[in-house]
Structures are given as structure tokens and as C-alpha cells.
């Protein structure tokens, strides 16, 4: 993979991640505010399934199968030929379709900047805010234990 291919892959990984993790309602609200209605064909209609989640023994050892999780996938092709793919945890078909459409448009130079600014950036800001809120709550429960010296004076 060349340097620029690598860059475009990591850019795509980034927006795919934001689209998947975004709150479903927030995603639809932001998407509708964009008022883009691209013509598209389904390569794969939104489909609910399972993936087997894997972990590592001891956190860093050999992989093992932890248990399944639900996810929804979808693939679309725009009239421009751009191919959008989504794999989203949970069972929300509308979420998967919107994520696939956004993925296709984000690969299109005409839409890329607008979508980054008006879809990905605000959704990511929400994710970061939610993360910061959880972190602050957890941080308030940070504890220092003292061990007391035992024995007779």
C-alpha cells in the first residue's frame, strides 16, 4: 500500500468508526439536516446478523471466542459509482443504510468536505463529549486506600 492509499484508508476507517458509534437518533438528525438525497442502488440491503467477538486470554495472550454480538450491515452504490459499506453494532437498519450512504458520499470529492464538517465532525464531538462525561464521573470515584499498621504499641 502506498503512502496516499494508507492515508485514504485511515481517513475512511475514521469516518466509518464515527458513523458506527454515533447515536442512531443523532445520526439521523444530522443526516436529514444535510438534505442530501443521493440516487443509489443496493449492493446489499440492510441485513441483521451476528459476529463472534474475540478476546485474548489474559488480555494479551492467545485469542478466544468471547460471545456473539448483533450487528447490521449494508452496502450501496451511488450513481457516481462510489461504493459505500457499513457494519454497525446492534439491529438498526436505518442506521446501517445512512452509514453506508455517508460512507459512499465521503469518498466523493464533491461531498467530502461538506460531510466531514456537517456530519462527521459534529457526531464525533458528541462521542468525545459523552466519553469525557463518563471519564469525569469515573474520575470522581478514584480512591486512595491507606494500609494501617497493625500490632501493639
Amino acid at each position, binding site marked *: 500500500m502506498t503512502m496516499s492509499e494508507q492515508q485514504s484508508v485511515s481517513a475512511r476507517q475514521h469516518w466509518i468508526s464515527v458513523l458506527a*458509534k454515533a447515536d442512531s437518533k443523532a445520526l439521523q438528525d444530522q443526516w436529514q439536516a444535510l438534505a442530501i438525497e443521493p440516487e443509489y442502488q443496493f449492493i446489499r440491503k440492510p441485513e441483521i446478523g451476528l459476529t463472534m467477538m474475540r478476546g485474548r486470554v489474559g488480555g494479551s495472550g492467545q485469542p478466544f471466542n468471547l460471545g456473539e454480538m448483533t450487528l447490521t450491515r449494508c452496502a450501496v452504490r451511488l450513481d457516481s459509482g462510489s461504493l459505500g459499506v457499513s457494519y454497525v*453494532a446492534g439491529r438498526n437498519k436505518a442506521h446501517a443504510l445512512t452509514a453506508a450512504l455517508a460512507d459512499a458520499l465521503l469518498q466523493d470529492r464533491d461531498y467530502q468536505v461538506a460531510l466531514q464538517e456537517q456530519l462527521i465532525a459534529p457526531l464525533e464531538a458528541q462521542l468525545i463529549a459523552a466519553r469525557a462525561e463518563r471519564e469525569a464521573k469515573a474520575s470522581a470515584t478514584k480512591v486512595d486506600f491507606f494500609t494501617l499498621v497493625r500490632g501493639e504499641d
Partner: protein
Amino acid sequence: MYVAVKGGEKAIDNAHALMREQRRGDTAIAELSVEQIKQQLPLAVDRVMNEGSVYDPELAALALKQASGDSVEAIFLLRAYRTTLPRFGYSEPVDTEQMQIERRISGTFKDLPGGQVLGSTYDYTHRLLDFALLAEGDSAPSEQASNNMGVPQSHRSEARTEAENSDKLEACPRVLELLNQEGLIEQSRGDGEEDITPRDLTRQPVNYPVERAVRLQNLIRGDEGFLLSLSYSSMRGYGDSHPFAGEMRSGRVSVELVPEELGFPIEIGEVMLTECEMVNQFHGSKDQPPQFTRGYGIAMGRAERKAMSVALVERALRAEELGEAVNYPTQDQEFVLSHTDCVSANGFVSHLKLPHYVDFQSELEMIRRLRKAASEASAQPSKDKADTAGEEI
């Protein structure tokens, strides 16, 4: 042998209608929504996800509602549903070191990098019924009451000053890796060890003895009560185990997979996980020096008791591989792993409720025959028997 019966359709329909009516309860009371169960009974939801072996809080909450709160029935429903879905491959192994920590404690180290974070816990509560929760209407507990449940007012200010840290948490490296630097704890991975694709017990049958990855998969979907009791027994003396909780952490972890059509990993969302590592004393064997060994447990959601029980039983089941004597049930792979599944266990026990009329009839006949034979024999004692009886006196 089970012989099928026919009939009873009308009665069965009526029985199911009655079940639905009882499940709904008094219709003067508002109906519980699936979202309410998901939001307000999250630990019950976590248990159903773990043993149902499907991460989906909404489905688990639905199953709990449908099962009138019976977790084993709910788990069965979730397991049945999962068989209707296609499998889109396997995820990349989750990286729990990158977990966004919501709770992290260690029973072995007081001061550890990243610190101890209590998070949301029932530990340290006084287990006094909180009648504020019983009050109707304006019953939303205040932030203080819910954060400091059972903690007297005078202690609260202290708790708050102690918590006057920045909002940021430091990085939380894995505790046991720290001791590893001295080589006192076994490593979770040998130097230069390649990944082995783990077998999947939902796709391949289990043969004994079975490798660690499959044992772990089995335990994670195993019955919490069974695993808790097994680990309790191993700590009480039926298994040479009194370990330390090296680390327990709960938080969100990103899940990645590599779709075929893309060829690179993408994140599909986050899951809440609880991970526990136990440290056990190990006296050494001919191949290994005395050191601490590790038992590993992980569970979906905030299932701490489950993660700890898995870690304890997981370590006990390593007896054979570490050259320890297998003396107790908890160390016996086949005994433990073939009885962890609550759906199987419940199915086998519950099947006794089904009509066994022909079976029982045949056993009844046999008992009658045996009794008849016995009474005839005692009415006319044979010479041999009389002699034997005489000798015994």
C-alpha cells in the same frame, strides 16, 4: 424411552393465555417497557446477554420481559433467537488495555499506575433496604443519595475531598504486566508466540481434554450460579486455590472486524465489558519455577461476579496443564464444562415434567413383579436362605 403423547391443544392454548395474563399483572399498574428494563435493570440484562451469549441489551431486556423476569427462560429465548441470524464472521480480538475505564480495582496493589477507580458499585454499601426507592411519585433519588447510598452524611465530605482529582483519568496499564517485569508472574503470551485461531464451540463439538480458549468460551456463557459455587468450593478447600484479585476493570471497548469487501479493519461500535485477572500461588513443577499463575475471566456488561467466577474456575481447570493433581470437581474439565450451560441443564431437568406415562407404567409393573417374587420367596423360605440366616445370628 420417551413415548410421545397427543392432545391437550385447547388446554395448552389456555395455559399460555393465563401465563400472558399473569405476566402482565394488575392492569391498573403501568406496563413495564423493554426500554425501562434495559435502563433500570441493567445487571439482569447483562446476565441474560452473558449466558445467552449475545451482546444486545435491547434483545436481552425483551427476553426478560417475555420471561416474566426468569433469567434462565430469558437466556433460552435469546439463544433460540441467535440461531435465526446469519454469522458475519469473527471480530478482531478486543483490546481491553484500551478500555475506557469506568471502574478499576486491584486487590494486590494499593498504588498502581492509573489509580483505583471505584466507579459504580454495590461494594461498601450497607445493604440496608432503601425505602426512598419504595416511595411513589417524586422518588428520583438525589445525586448524593444515589452516589453515597448507605454512607452517613459525616463521611460524605471526606469522600468528596478524596475525589477532588482532575476529571481526567491517567492511562491504566494492565496490573499483572507490571509484576511480570520481575518475572514473578507467568506471561500471558510466550516470546514470539503466533496467534492460533481458536476453535468455536458453537460450530465444533468439544472433546476432552480441551484447550484453554475453548474452556474460556464455555465458561463465559456458563451459568453464573454454578460457576460462583464451583469457585467458592475451590477456595474453601475442594481445590487448592486462594488467589488474589490482581485486577478487575469495567468499561467500554471498541470492536473491530475486517469485512471481506474492504480488506482492512473497521470499528463497528463499542461494548461494555468486565475483565478480571486472578493471581494464584504456584509452587513450581519440573518445567517451571515457583511463580504466580493467572486465571482469566471476562464478561459482557458489568458482570463482576461472573468475571471473577470465570477467572477462578478458569485457573482451577488449568491444573492438568500446570502439572497439578486433579483431585476436585472444579479441576475436572469434563465435569465442569459439560455442566455449565444453563439452557442444557434446565432442558434436561425440565423434561421430567413431560408425560412419562409409558415409562413409569413399565417401572411400576417391574416393581410389582419384584415384590411379588420377594413375598413368595419369604412365604416359602428355601433351605439355603434359612441356613444363611442362622449363621448371621
